[in-house]
């Protein structure tokens, strides 16, 4: 697109560029600020002298945070839920999506209808809670893995992807004597690396960031994931200072501790994000086309 170099054109371009820079600043500043505060000298931090760059240098807050075994336990729990949960999610999702992508599948319509309906209506928070209780999942690790095992939206995305695998391929394999499971395992799955990557990313991020299921189903502190630990420290502001710090260091360091915890919890995502970003975008696009 070649635009004539008019003044108004140049002005528009400049305005847009300025706005975009503003956007970048807005997106990055909070995290940069949090990071700077967390590594600054505690006195400078408490005196509110830090605005963008750290003042002084101190890893004191991090030491306090990382010396607390609770955060390690929470991290381990989150890893467990993320890895285990995502594995289950992706498996169940593609096992459901592939047959639904076959037009000749006898149960295609009823099942599709059934799962789409759940997007419109469900039993509600209380009945689900009671059910989980009655099944015996309350206060167990499995509550977080089994609940939300399959996301309808992701099934639809996967189904769209699988429908690009031509029926002729499946038919010729059948003529060679393969059954559906064999076809799925040896032909479909190897062809599905892109969609599996997208699913893994979406589900994994979902698990990493989730807190609510743990809030209502996991009263046992030893089973709680990182986000729930963050809720306690950042939102409810309980006990961390009490359990970790003596007397007056408390108020000085508390804010820095909060900022350090934010960094500790978010660093993995921030680190991994740039590399995986294009897969997410692809996933959203696939979903959009179907939507």
């Amino acid at each position, binding site marked *: *697109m070649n*635009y004539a170099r008019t003044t*108004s054109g140049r002005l*528009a*371009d400049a305005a*847009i560029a300025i*706005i*975009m820079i503003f*956007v*970048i600043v807005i*997106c990055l500043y*909070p995290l940069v*600020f949090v990071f700077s505060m967390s590594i600054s000298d505690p006195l400078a931090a*408490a005196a*509110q002298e830090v605005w963008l760059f750290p003042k002084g240098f101190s890893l004191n807050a991090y030491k306090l945070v990382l010396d607390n075994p609770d955060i390690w336990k929470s991290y381990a729990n989150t890893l467990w839920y993320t890895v285990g949960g995502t594995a289950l999610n992706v498996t*169940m*999702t593609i096992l*459901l999506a*592939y*047959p639904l992508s076959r037009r*000749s599948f*006898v*149960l295609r319509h009823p099942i599709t209808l*059934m799962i789409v309906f*759940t997007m*419109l*209506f*469900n*039993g*509600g*928070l*209380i*009945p*689900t809670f*009671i059910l989980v209780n009655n*099944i015996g999942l309350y206060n167990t690790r499995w509550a977080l893995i*089994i609940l939300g*095992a*399959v996301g309808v939206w992701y*099934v639809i995305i996967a189904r769209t992807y699988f429908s690009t695998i031509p029926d002729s391929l499946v038919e010729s394999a059948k003529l060679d004597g393969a059954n*559906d*499971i064999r076809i799925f395992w040896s032909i479909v799955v190897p062809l599905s690396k892109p969609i599996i990557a997208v699913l893994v990313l979406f589900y994994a991020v979902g698990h*990493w*960031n*989730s807190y609510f299921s743990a809030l*209502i189903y996991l009263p046992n502190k030893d089973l709680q994931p990182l*986000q729930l630990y*963050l809720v306690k420290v*950042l*939102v409810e502001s309980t006990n961390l200072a009490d359990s970790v710090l003596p007397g007056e260091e408390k108020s000085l360091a508390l*804010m820095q501790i*909060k*900022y350090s915890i*934010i960094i500790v*919890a*978010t660093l993995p995502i*921030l680190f991994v994000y740039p590399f995986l970003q294009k897969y997410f975008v692809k996933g*959203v696009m696939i979903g*959009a086309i179907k*939507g």
Partner: protein
Amino acid sequence: MPSPMTASPARHSAPVRGSAFYKFAKQLVSDKYLILMVLPAVAYFIIFHYLPMYGVLMAFKNFSPSRGIWNSPWVGLKWFEQFFDSIYAFRLIKNVLLLNLYNLLWSFPIPIVFALMLNEIRKNAFKRVVQTVSYMPHFISVVVIVGMAITFLSPNDGIVNTALEKLGFAKINFLSEPGWFRTIYIGTDVWASFGYNSILYLAALAGIDSQMYEAARIDGASRWKQLVHVTLPGIAPTIIILLLLQLGRMMSIGFEKIILLYTPSTYEVSDVISSYVYRIGLVGGDFSFAAAVDLMNATINFVLIVVFNWLSRRLTETSLW
């Protein structure tokens, strides 16, 4: 089609009814491996999504966990009456509607404008950097976002209040002031989602036929005119669909951020139906009542979503050219 090798022993049985059912049964058998594959997921949906629907009955009963749903006494519409008679009903519904309205006002258009601006950028490297940075907030968990908001807005040592003080203004206790709640809620929402939500619009923008732009240019259209007469109509279907879907969600709002952000002093603007159900039902243990309120909300949502989904399908068929 089933392979020619399967026998059909039903040739002697009653013809018409038998053959329709028989065909279905035969297909079930030939698809048996596919059925096996979907079984775990289907079982999951039945157990965790459909079984709780039975639990909806507790909204009409005086449910006690020890007696179970079946044995609890029937109370009919008592809880629904109780809810609508209370002062909460109006407040909660008003809050949901207002929050969603603000959402429509801000969170909806901003990604569109952002996408349009991105589309005008010609230096690809710059464009990609902006995109990458703008998607990032979406991946930060709601707990961290609320945590940052709470810390920044903290009355004594939050950075915002420190800045206000230095500029000569009085400190504001943001999180306890009802007047600030919606701003904080929508503000953090926009921050977290504007980039990610723009992806759909960017895809739509990329799908506009470049020949339309050519034709417009040949007709002497300026850059602005091209925007108005080619670009906007080009993404209009996308906007309309998403708008209608959003309208279908006017009565529904997720509580995950709200229960982290609200305080008792802001309940009058921040408490919504879903957070109320959580507080009264799960935390307070008033199961039946909360289930009733939840059911009412879910039913309204269902009707709204179905109506607007249908509308979106009808309207966009006629608006596509």
